[in-house]
């Protein structure tokens, strides 16, 4: 469930910040209104970037393995 929650949060952030990432997403005004309020979501996104190449490691951490 934590994994699912994390992925939902990532999807939400991608939809909001799509314009900045180079793909068509929600209207720019929505992003500008929400950006100052999405510190937690941006931190999660940056965290996802750093673990993107180690999906197995992420999965193991959810199961408290290792």
């Amino acid at each position: 469930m934590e994994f699912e929650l994390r992925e939902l949060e990532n999807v939400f952030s991608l939809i909001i910040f799509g314009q900045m990432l180079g793909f068509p997403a929600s209207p720019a005004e929505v992003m500008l209104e929400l950006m100052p309020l999405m510190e937690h979501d941006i931190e999660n996104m940056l965290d996802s970037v750093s673990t993107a190449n180690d999906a197995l490691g992420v999965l193991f951490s959810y199961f408290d393995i290792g």
Partner: protein
Amino acid sequence: MKTLDLLIGKGGVGKSSCSALLSLYFASRGQKTLIVSMDPAHNLGDIFERRFDERPRSIPNGPDVIEIDVEARIKRSLRESESQVRESYGYLSSLNLESNFKVLRYAPGMEEAAMLGAFADLIHRYRSGYERFVIDMPPTALSLRFLSLPSLSLLWLEELLKLRRKILKKQEIVEKIKVGKKVIHEDKVLERLEKMLAEHRKHQSFFQSETCRIHIVANPEKLSLKEAGRLQQKLNSLGFAAYNLFLNKDKGEEISDVGSAFLQIRRIPLSERPLMGAEAIFAFLGQADKALSALL
């Protein structure tokens, strides 16, 4: 506010002239009128031979005039957002905020969002001070994007709200498992989404109300009339209908290319002299009386 008249059409058909004429007509009938230029390429200053800005400036015996600076509004909103983001989490230097915000200036939707913001401000500020509003709109493409923005934003906001609520529900479950009890957090993102949804619903409902009248301006030429017909179809597909077709620079000839697309055709005769300056437009009012009286 009795009515808000939006004049749209292809570039060069005479939207600004017709807007100026309509606003002077209302004012001449003793109705306090505000004419607003939303076209980034403002023409009202040339027509009234005066400079205008975002504060209402009076034309003697005429309307008050405002020119909206869309570019300045976009810059202002980006600056505000950037400073709020810096304040909230400036430590996230890897975000490269400055260059990202520079790029956002040209992001799709920024211009029409700034126009909608300006429009909402106008209504909020001046609604009780004027009986009539006349809006000189930008050329067709930007006008259509402006009119469709509330509906488009509503689609996005409704889906984003569903997703956010789903996320919050899952967060509650995860916390209940971890902490052993339900912990209720205030979610500022959800609150802001709900606020934006309410605002856009208000805009959409206003655009579709009887107070708001859309008029298409065209010239009595085959190409211009076909364009007007297509514009009406496009408006219909967005849930709007043009109230009138203003046939500007009419020479009194019979026209056959309009079809039944429009409720009414208002013929504005071709003026013998250029309509520059309030005096020239006042002098011309008598000739346009027949076309404009039905709008009172």
